[in-house]
């Protein structure tokens, strides 16, 4: 008899249970898919669309349904944000609630989504299809949550690596601070290639400064100069003493003293008048007002030795070959008066100059030299006889990709992100619980934040090269010959630029100056630089140039710095009708609100009374027709003038000469 093998009841029960569990899981999965966040969101959008759009618009709209994604093949990114952000490119949803509202501004035009997607700019997890997983808010173990608007410009910097985007002022400000503070001296920073920074030459500092000032400076540079570019190195007192001795021993070029200069006859009043006439404040601030190319002079009397200052004003380039300071053509008496004025007027202490002895202590000098080398002073201050140590700080390439959990935050209770680390490091380098040789720059928190934003966009190799916009470093401009000597002596390139190389204080680069300004005007202007722009604070110095030098420069400008497009302009035959029409246009367009002719008009733009003697017609016409092409960010509005109208205005302006009043530009 066959024995039927009985399946144990237990197994029956187990299989039944499993089947039920399987069915339950299956049902749960189905339900979950059907009620997924993005589906309910799309359903809500459908209802919203019905209320916002009329039937015709609805018929035209592409049917929305299912997952939507932007695949950026070359970036290896998939952004599914548009699955929920369904009204992002449709202006009808301008005031719709999130996630349906239209993208504000013109960003989608300048950054088409099919090329850039969403997360390139905003951060977050593009592949996710629900709010939390997309990392709209920061969350644990999420390396790149979405950026809040306040700091979103950091992401602009990843592609706009060096070219400053016009719509990201915080990023631009951060980069400006990086350049200005000399970060590139110690750190290699991608995007800042070609940017250099040099502190003052120290080869003759022993003759230049007072020992007690030097000690205080090394202790805390900001104590003397709140705008100081040098940070506080947090040196110990003994290090300061030896560094002071070492620096005072630097006496390469002795100051030249003229024994015939009678200091008892020095006139502070003469000096003050010269200080105004030479326009020193274009580059140097006094009590916070004035330029920033040179150091602030508010307490310069506490800092400098008389002989050193006299020598420097007489010929700045002898002891400091790389200074942006120009060499005026002054008599020894004038230099004496200026020296006396600066030392007597701008001082806080009454202590007379002391003779320094410390530098003769050879041991202290040797110790100071070691400190100088160890702390990387050579990164900014080159000294003969001391090898360039290169950049002493670490490279910042890919700094934003550093693992936040590997970084030290000290006692700061902060969310662990690379950018918070960078921020704290920039703000207080010694507060991160690890020894740091980076000086404290005493940035305001908002400044440190902007610097950190500029650095937080520096990623390793995130983007293909086609996305990255790089800056072309301007090639140095060093003219030779007599003209080159004059450019060097008067340090034209401290304020003016050629091909992007040079300073940016002046609104007039040299590139096409010969086609902008008339020869005779250039020559006379160099001898007596007047105020063309009445309201400008920074003005061209009065060089005390010789007439020969002025003519030489004017010849060179008019022969070399030309723009053929401007030169070809046919100005031969302006008719009186054209000039009249131009005058009418001048009135119609409201030019008077910014420009003065005679005594009427505003003083935002250049004074125009003698335009005919000053500007070449080709330049006037070209500039009026396309102002931003020649001067980005100019306050000259672009009226969209036709070439006829531009010509008429040119005819009128060219007719202005030897006008009734010309503001003289002499001493202020």
């Amino acid at each position, binding site marked *: 008899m066959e024995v039927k093998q009985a399946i144990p009841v237990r197994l029956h029960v187990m299989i039944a249970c499993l089947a039920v569990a399987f069915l339950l899981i299956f049902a749960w999965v189905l339900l979950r898919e059907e009620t997924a966040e993005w589906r309910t969101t799309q359903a809500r959008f459908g209802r919203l669309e019905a209320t916002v759009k009329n039937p015709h618009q609805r018929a035209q709209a592409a049917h929305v349904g299912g997952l939507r994604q932007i695949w950026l093949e070359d970036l290896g990114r998939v952004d599914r944000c548009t699955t929920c952000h369904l009204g992002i490119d449709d202006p009808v949803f301008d005031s719709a609630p999130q996630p349906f509202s239209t993208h504000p501004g013109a960003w989608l035009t300048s950054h088409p989504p099919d090329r850039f997607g969403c997360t390139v700019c905003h951060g977050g997890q593009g592949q996710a299809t629900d709010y939390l997983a997309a990392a709209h808010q920061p969350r644990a173990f999420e390396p790149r949550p979405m950026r809040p608007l306040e700091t979103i410009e950091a992401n602009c910097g990843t592609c706009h690596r060096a070219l400053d985007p016009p719509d990201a002022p915080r990023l631009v400000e951060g980069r400006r601070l990086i350049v200005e503070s000399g970060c590139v001296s110690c750190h290699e920073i991608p995007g800042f290639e070609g940017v250099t920074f040099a502190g003052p030459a120290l080869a003759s500092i022993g003759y230049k400064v007072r020992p007690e000032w030097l000690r205080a400076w090394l202790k805390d540079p900001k104590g003397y100069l709140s705008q100081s570019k040098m940070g506080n190195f947090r040196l110990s007192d003994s290090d300061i003493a030896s560094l002071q001795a070492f620096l005072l021993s630097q006496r390469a070029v002795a100051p030249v003293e003229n024994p015939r200069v009678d200091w008892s006859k020095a006139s502070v009043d003469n000096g003050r008048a010269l200080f105004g006439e030479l326009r020193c404040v274009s580059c140097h601030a006094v009590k916070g007002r004035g330029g920033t190319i040179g150091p602030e002079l508010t307490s310069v009397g506490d800092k400098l030795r008389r002989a050193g200052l006299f020598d420097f004003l007489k010929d700045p380039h002898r002891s400091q070959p790389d200074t942006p300071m120009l060499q005026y053509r002054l008599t020894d008496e004038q230099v004496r008066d200026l020296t006396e004025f600066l030392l007597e007027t701008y001082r806080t202490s009454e202590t007379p100059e002391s003779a320094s002895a410390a530098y003769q202590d050879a041991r202290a000098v040797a110790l100071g030299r070691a400190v100088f080398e160890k702390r990387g002073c050579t990164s900014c201050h080159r000294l003969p006889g001391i090898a360039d140590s290169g950049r002493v700080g670490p490279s910042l390439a890919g700094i934003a990709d550093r693992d936040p959990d590997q970084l030290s935050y000290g006692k700061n209770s902060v969310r662990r992100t690379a950018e918070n680390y960078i921020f704290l490091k920039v703000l207080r380098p010694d507060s991160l619980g690890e020894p740091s040789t980076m000086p404290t720059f005493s940035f305001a928190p908002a400044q440190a934040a902007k610097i950190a934003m500029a650095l937080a966009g520096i990623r390793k190799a995130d983007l293909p090269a086609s996305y990255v916009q790089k800056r072309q470093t301007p090639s140095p401009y060093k003219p030779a010959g007599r003209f080159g000597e004059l450019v060097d002596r008067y340090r034209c390139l401290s304020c003016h630029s050629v091909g992007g190389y040079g300073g940016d204080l002046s609104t007039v680069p040299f590139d096409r100056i010969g086609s902008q300004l008339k020869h005779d005007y250039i020559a006379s202007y160099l001898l007596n630089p007047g105020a063309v722009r009445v309201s400008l604070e920074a003005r061209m110095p009065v060089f005390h140039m010789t007439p020969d030098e002025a003519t030489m420069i004017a010849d060179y400008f008019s022969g070399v710095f030309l723009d053929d497009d401007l030169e070809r302009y046919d100005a031969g035959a302006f008719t009186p009708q054209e000039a009249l029409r131009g005058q009418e246009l001048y009135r119609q367009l409201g030019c008077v609100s910014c420009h003065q002719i005679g005594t009427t008009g505003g003083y935002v733009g250049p004074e125009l009374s003698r335009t005919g003697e000053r500007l070449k017609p080709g330049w006037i016409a070209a500039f009026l027709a396309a102002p931003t092409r020649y001067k980005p960010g100019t306050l000259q*509005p672009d009226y969209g003038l036709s070439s006829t109208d531009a010509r008429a205005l040119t005819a009128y302006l060219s007719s202005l000469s030897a006008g009734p009043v010309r503001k003289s530009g002499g001493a202020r």
Partner: protein
Amino acid sequence: MMNAHRAAARLRLRLRRGKSAMALCGTVVAMVAMVAMVGCSRPAAPQPGDPLLDAIRAEERGAGHLTYAESQGKALFSHYCSTCHGDEGRGDGQNASNLTPPPPDLTVPKNVSDQALVRKVIAEGSAAIGRSPLSPPWGRSLTRQQIDYLVAYCQSLGRKKS
């Protein structure tokens, strides 16, 4: 005899119930204690902050609670507009005295309440709305984005006063 048996069984049952109740009580007490201990061993740490973000927000507060767009507009305003309209938009810029008619006070709400009008004046100049030509058109020099920012900032000036 039976009665005695029943009584003993009832007693045992009650004892057992008591035991389980006690065990239950014990467990609950232990869990509460554990939770309390865990809670105590981790003193309430301050929420980790975002100092970078805080610094930017503090600056925004200092500028009068401007939104992102408004603060962008403010920077543009100080470059392109403030020489005539004044740093605060009160129509008291350094060039204002040269202008007849003088620039309007933008902190008066009605001067900036009409968004389309403000945009038109900025982009096409004051002549475009039939007024004097003294305020020039910026539509060709600035991007649409920049004009959006400027409009937002101008409107915030009126809001502040109201």
